C-alpha cells in the first residue's frame, strides 16, 4: 500500500524539492503552500501516514498545525517532521514540545529527509 504524505511549505523550491524526492521514492505526496490549506486537507479522509511541515508559514504555522493535530483523535498519532531554518536549541525544543516527531533544519539533505521519513513510517 502506498503511503500518503502531506507536505506544506510556502517556499516553492523547498516544496518542489521535497515533493520530488518523496514521489521518486514511491510515496503519494500532497503538497500545500501554507499551513491553513494543509490543515483543511488534514480534516478530510484519508488520514495521511506522515506530514512534513515548514515551521514558518503565513497564517497557520507548522507548529500550530502540529498542535491541532495532537488535539484531534484522528490525527494524534500521525508522525510529523518539521522543517525550519531556525536551528537553535530553543527552536528545536519548541518544535518537539509542540508534538513534532522530528525536526530538520534548513539547509537540509534531501537524502537524510527521506531516511527520516522511512524511519518514521517504520520502513527502516
Amino acid at each position: 500500500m502506498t503511503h500518503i504524505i502531506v507536505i506544506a511549505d510556502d517556499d516553492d523550491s523547498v516544496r518542489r524539492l521535497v515533493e520530488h524526492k518523496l514521489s521518486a521514492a514511491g510515496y503519494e505526496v500532497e503538497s500545500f503552500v501554507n499551513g491553513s490549506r494543509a490543515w483543511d486537507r488534514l480534516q478530510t479522509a484519508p488520514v495521511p501516514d506522515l506530514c512534513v511541515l515548514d515551521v514558518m508559514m503565513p497564517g497557520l504555522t507548522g507548529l500550530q498545525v502540529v498542535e491541532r493535530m495532537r488535539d484531534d483523535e484522528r490525527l494524534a498519532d500521525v508522525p510529523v517532521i518539521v522543517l525550519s531554518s531556525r536551528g537553535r536549541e530553543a527552536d528545536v525544543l519548541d518544535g518537539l514540545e509542540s508534538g513534532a516527531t522530528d525536526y530538520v533544519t534548513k539547509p537540509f539533505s534531501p537524502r537524510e529527509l527521506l531516511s527520516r521519513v522511512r524511519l518514521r513510517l517504520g520502513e527502516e
Partner: protein
Amino acid sequence: MTPDYAPPVVSQLPQPTAETAILAGIVLLALLIAVAVLTLAESIYQYRRDRRRDRVRDDVELALLSRMSEPEPEWDEWVASASEPERDVARELLNDYLRTVDGTERATLVELVRELGIFAEARETLDGGARHEKLQALGWFALSGEDVDPDRLDATCTGGNDLRAAAARVLYEADHPDARGRGTDLLVGDGSPTLTTHGIDTLYRLYETDPSPLLDRAAAEGDEWGLSLVVQVLSVIRHTGLLAQAADWSFVHEHTTHESPSVRAAAVRAFGPPGWDPTFRESVPVERLLADPHRNVRRATYEVLAEWGDDRSLELLRAALRTEPDQRSRLRGMEALDDDQLAGLELGVPTADDPADGEVVTTLTAAGSTTETSVDAAMGTGVSSAAATEPADADEAVDVAVDAGNQSVPPDPTAFDRALAWVRADRGATER
C-alpha cells in the same frame, strides 16, 4: 523694437526663426520616437526571453532534481545539450537550491555550477568587474563553498566594507585553512572603519568555536580601530566568549575604562558568557562597574550579573537596584532577572500616601521615545521635555539630560517597589 527693460546681452542674441524652431521640433520628435522604439523593442525582447525561459523551466527543474540525487549526474552532457534559455533557468534554480540543499546533493549541484562556467566567469569578474558584479561573483563562490586564492581577494575585493565582508565570507564558506587570519584581515584591516551586518556575522562565524585568537588580535591591533569597530568586535566576543575563559581578556578589561560609555557597556556585556567560571567572575571589577557614572554601563553590568546568576552576583545586583538613581536602568536590571531571581527581591506595599515620584525624565528622540515614555507613563513618573544641548549624537544628548535630571532629584524610596511591581505585572500579562 527692443524693450527698455531687456538686458543688453539678450538683445544682441540672434532671434530664432520659424524654420529653426520647426527643425528643433522635428529633431526632438525623432529622438522621442527613437527612444520609444528602443524601449518597446527591449520590452518585446525581454518578454520573449522570459516566455522561452518559462516554457523550459519545469523541464530544467525536473532535470536538476532528478540528476542531483544520481551518483553520476553527467552534467557535462546535459549542459552541452542545453539551450541558452535552459542554461539561464538552471542558473536561477541553482541560486535557489544551493540555499536549500545540503549534503551529497549539494555537492552535485556545485558540479553543475562549475560545468555551466559560472566559476570561471566569476573569477574574471573579480579582476575587472563593477562592484555589484563582484558582489554577485563572490555570492556564487560563497554559496558553493568554492575556494578562492586569498591573495586574489586581497587584490580585487577591498574597495568597500561590503566587498570585504563578502570576500571574507568566501574564505569561511570554503573552509580555507587560513580563513580566520585572512578573513579577519579583510574584515578589520586598513580602511575598514566599521563592519556591515554581513561582516559582523562572518566575524562571528570565524570565531564561533574559539574566540581566543580574536581576543589576541584585538589586544594587538585594537588601539588602531575606530569606536564603531571596537563596539562591534566586543559584541562578537560576547557572542562567542563562552569557551574563552582561559584566553587573554586584557582588551576587554581595558575598554571598561574607555571614555565612550558605548564602548564601556559593550566591554561589560562581553563578560557575560564565560561567567559560569567562578575564577573568571572574580577577575571582573564588578563594584567599579556598578559605580560607573553612565547608566548604560550600569545597565550592562546588571544584565551580566543576572546572567551569571550566582549568589554573590545576585546580592550585588539587588543592592545596586535599590540605590540606582535611574528608574529605567532599575527596570532593565529587574527585567534581566528570571522569575526565581526576581522572587528574591523584597516587595514593599505601595500606599495611597506615597509621595509623587519626583524623578524627571527627558522626552526622548523618536528613536526611543515611544517605548520609554510609555514605560514612564505606566510607572506614573513625571515626564518633561528638555532641550538637547550640542550632542555628539541624539542618544548622548538624552543621556546627559537624564543624568543631570537624576542627580538633581533626591532618591525616591518607593521607586524600587514600584518598579518591581511593574515588572511582575508585565510578566504576568505576557504569560496570559
